């Protein structure tokens, strides 16, 4: 009985901490979607370890500028992300921009893209990856 209570207490405490992990990162990431951008109303996250990559699928509409913010760890720049088209052409990689935590994509014509996000191994071995998307009117 005492052991069960211990498990429950541990579980409850750790659940709150785990939720906080992604929550804290999300709070930091939200700051990159500045007031010029309208949030898309969705929250994307993945828990990664090592060289795992999360995959985000988006349709980007033509004539729109999107802001993609990608965060992990305790500071910006811990997440590497690539934007690819359906033929796997790399449209953008934040690795070439010093692991920039956000970037704008000005889209001329509607395109379906895939964003692959993984942890920068030099900064983090595992953690929560958060991606947020906003767009300009």
């Amino acid at each position, binding site marked *: 009985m005492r*052991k069960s209570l*211990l*498990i429950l207490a*541990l*579980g*409850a405490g*750790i*659940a*709150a901490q*785990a939720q*906080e*992990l992604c*929550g804290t990162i*999300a709070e930091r990431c939200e700051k990159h979607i500045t*007031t010029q951008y*309208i*949030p*898309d*109303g*969705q*929250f*994307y*996250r*993945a*828990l*990664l*370890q090592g*060289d*795992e*990559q*999360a*995959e*985000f*699928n988006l*349709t*980007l*509409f033509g004539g729109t*500028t999107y802001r993609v913010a990608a965060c992990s760890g305790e500071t910006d720049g811990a997440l590497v992300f690539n*934007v690819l*088209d*359906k033929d796997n052409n790399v*449209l*953008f990689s934040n690795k070439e*921009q010093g692991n*920039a935590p*956000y970037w*704008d*994509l*000005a889209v*001329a*014509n*509607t*395109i*379906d893209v895939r964003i*692959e996000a993984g942890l920068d191994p030099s900064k983090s*071995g*595992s953690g*929560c990856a958060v991606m947020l998307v906003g*767009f300009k*009117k």
Partner: protein
Amino acid sequence: MRLEPTSVAARTFDTRITNLYRASMSAPTSSTIALGLSLGLLMVACGGPETTTGTTGADTLAVDTTPKETELLNVGGKLFSIPSPVQTALAMRKAGLKYQKDLTTPLDKGESVVGKIGQSAVLGMYGADMAYVTVHKDGQRAMATMQAIEKLGGKLELTNSFDRSLLDRFKDNLGSEDSLLQFSGTAFRAADQYLKDNKRDDVSALVLAGGWVESLYLTVSDPAAAKDQAMVNRIGEQKNSLNALVSLLEASDKEKGATALITAMKELQALFAGVTNTYTFQEPVTDAAKKTTFINSTSSVTIPADQLAAIMAKVTAIRNLMLA
């Protein structure tokens, strides 16, 4: 919480997460994380005489410390984005489609709708209506819609996202379209985060489905949309979003309560199969100083007229199903 790699708990945590992603499309949940962690901690805490229990736990969790090949979290880890209803509303305004307030979901529907599925879908529909009335500068209706959202959000235990303070901010900014769209987008994102945190991916998917269907319904309900090439393209460009929605609904409908809706969405999917998309890659241009990449690839959409008519009819039918 720190994910320090020095403890057994940390390895167990990671392994649980990896397995979770392979097993389910739903977002990672804190309770699963907690289970992994608490079992891990238990193994550490219950050393000595309890080692057998701990060891058994470790075996059951199959902690894998061998290096993995680079892998994408396919299927289980794939995340889908559904276009914001705001974008569709803006496209409708740009195309000059007539504002028809009566097309929006009745505001008393939120009071009468029962059950998680209906309530979730109607919440999403209200979100799309909110975008629609806001971009058409109908502040009064926007306020009334936000009040309906707040009430329905309460029924779905989303008062942390849709609360009195949001209503107050809304009221204070009724003249600012940008602010209203910001507040609305931020509130729905917070709700989505809360739902995913609390293993309510089914509600999250249904809210998205309701918003998506309502947006499309508002679009196709104006006969002028079928004559406007930009709007026809916008309808056709929803093909991938529909595929994503069906995947989300199927993966999250563990209680099998949304079977009728999923079936109807799949029928719509079949109609969208007749939509042809072409794509030609063009080299993007990056302006590092502006932190902007210009994506110049070209694309086009073709929808045969009869297919468009069938899509329009089906969207209306699905919307009626959601409101039934």
